């Protein structure tokens, strides 16, 4: 029974794909060129693996994703800390921050091309922009949610502003910061595709557009699923990091 639970997700995915395959290949409920069955997606996937194109493009995207994501952590966490711990910063920088969050990145792609061209830079920038907001917002919420009683205790035992920050607020916010980082990982995957949409000739996002333009939906879906799998693996790693870095924090899911 417990083993069954552990494999529930795997079983679910397997069942989903089996039904999908049956509906398309077996029952012919839809045209396979419009709704490619998993077998076709798999064939497309192995095909791209075999001709060596996939690893090369994946490597390009991964490098950008790592760079953009790390940048988002390095920038997002301090921004969230500042926004969350200072009323003044939040008043002055809050409105532009929220406006920037609401900016439709896709509309500025021509400008990104103008300023940064087609290399890795604009892609890294977009990945950064996708990932930085969830990280900063969660960090901000984490800081704001710190139990005031802990802050009082720290002050009683001689902690100044900086020590309260380093020894209490930062730690108390850590679980939410890591949640934000997990969200950031997911959005970084989206950023890969959004970024490569602006052009270039490398990367998984570029491949997706190429295959879509040729109406090779099987390949496009294979690549999209690959991104989702990578995202899940990375999110699991962040969750693991959270369990190690914040063992005192029990996740509140029933």
């Amino acid at each position: 029974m417990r083993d069954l639970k552990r494999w529930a997700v795997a079983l679910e995915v397997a069942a989903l794909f089996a039904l999908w395959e049956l509906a398309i290949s077996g029952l012919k409920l839809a045209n396979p060129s419009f709704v490619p069955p998993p077998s076709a997606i798999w064939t497309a996937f192995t095909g791209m693996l075999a001709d060596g194109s996939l690893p090369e493009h994946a490597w390009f995207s991964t490098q950008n994703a790592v760079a953009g994501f790390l940048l988002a952590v390095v920038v997002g966490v301090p921004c969230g800390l500042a926004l969350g711990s200072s009323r003044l910063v939040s008043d002055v920088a809050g409105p532009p921050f929220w406006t920037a969050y609401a900016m439709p990145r896709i509309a500025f792609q021509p400008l990104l091309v103008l300023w940064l061209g087609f290399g890795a830079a604009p892609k890294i920038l977009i990945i950064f922009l996708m990932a930085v907001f969830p990280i900063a917002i969660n960090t901000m919420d984490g800081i704001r949610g710190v139990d005031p009683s802990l802050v009082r205790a720290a002050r009683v035992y001689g902690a100044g502003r900086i020590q309260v920050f380093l020894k209490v607020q930062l730690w108390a916010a850590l679980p939410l910061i890591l949640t934000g980082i997990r969200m950031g990982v997911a959005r970084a995957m989206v950023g890969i595709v959004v970024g490569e949409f602006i052009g270039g000739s490398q990367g998984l996002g570029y491949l997706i557009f190429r295959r879509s333009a040729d109406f090779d939906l099987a390949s496009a879906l294979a690549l999209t699923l690959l991104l989702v799998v990578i995202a899940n693996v990375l999110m699991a790693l962040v969750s693991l990091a959270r369990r190690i870095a914040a063992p005192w924090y029990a996740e509140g899911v029933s």
Partner: protein
Amino acid sequence: APQTPAPAATGPIGAPEKTALKIGMRLPNLDTNAPVEIALDKGFYKEEGLTVERVEVQSIREGLVGGSLDFGAEASPDVVAAATAGTGLRIVAGYRNREPFVVVVRPEIAKPQDLAGKPVLLGANPGTIEYDVRMQLLKEAGFDLTGVAVKPVNLPGGSNAWVEQFKQGKLAMTVIFPRHKKLVQGRLVLDVMKEWPNDSLTALQDFVDRNPNTTARFIRATIKGIKVFKDPAQQAYVQKLMRAKGFTVTPLEEEPEVYANGPLLYDDDMGLNAKGFEELLAVLKLPPAPFESFTHLGQLTRAQDALGVAKRP
């Protein structure tokens, strides 16, 4: 800023200035990319001392102005608009020199009124000049859609995708490439070839002035690529090459007369037709612009001279 003519702008082509180049292309299809891919594969660029990379990108003009592209195969009216706006962009050579207008409808569509409420793809958004041109040409061809409430559709992807959708019955009318004519079971309601410059090789005037030899060499190698593309004997080679580069080649396109539709759009002198521009601008209702205001053709001439190709008037 006043342009000082560069010293090496005439005469025999000297050593290239800039040697690592990027060319931007908008459409990921065989017909648009073949000349450059051939020139790359055959080493024509390398012979000129150039290292060329082909980049797929929608924002070619921004790429050129921002300096991340050196050349682009950009839609001609867009270059004219950009040149007029003061971006410093110029057409340095012709690329795909004519434009086919082929529109097909599903067999059940007998008259324009049958399209009411049906999805129609004219390759552009309503309200744009391109859309109006196609409407105008359809009207001239006796298929007047004025006043018919069609459902205008604009789909991403290239014509391969459109044809697929048309074949599945999801589009009632679509524009296609000539090479698709045989692929679709439909009725042609428009099939003309206009001597309107389609895509032009574009660069910054400033770039050309600073890199005259590079430009001439790039054009010379590209002309060699076009020549191969236009040679019917090379069909098998071209299609094998393009497949290897990830482009789609459908079985029907292996028929020589279908394949021939692509090379047909090119001239192997990469020359330009000033009259075609004038007509195009008029049809698009763009403000007339003197041919010289958006072209910069010195290096094209040198390349043509060096190759000894026939120059069209």
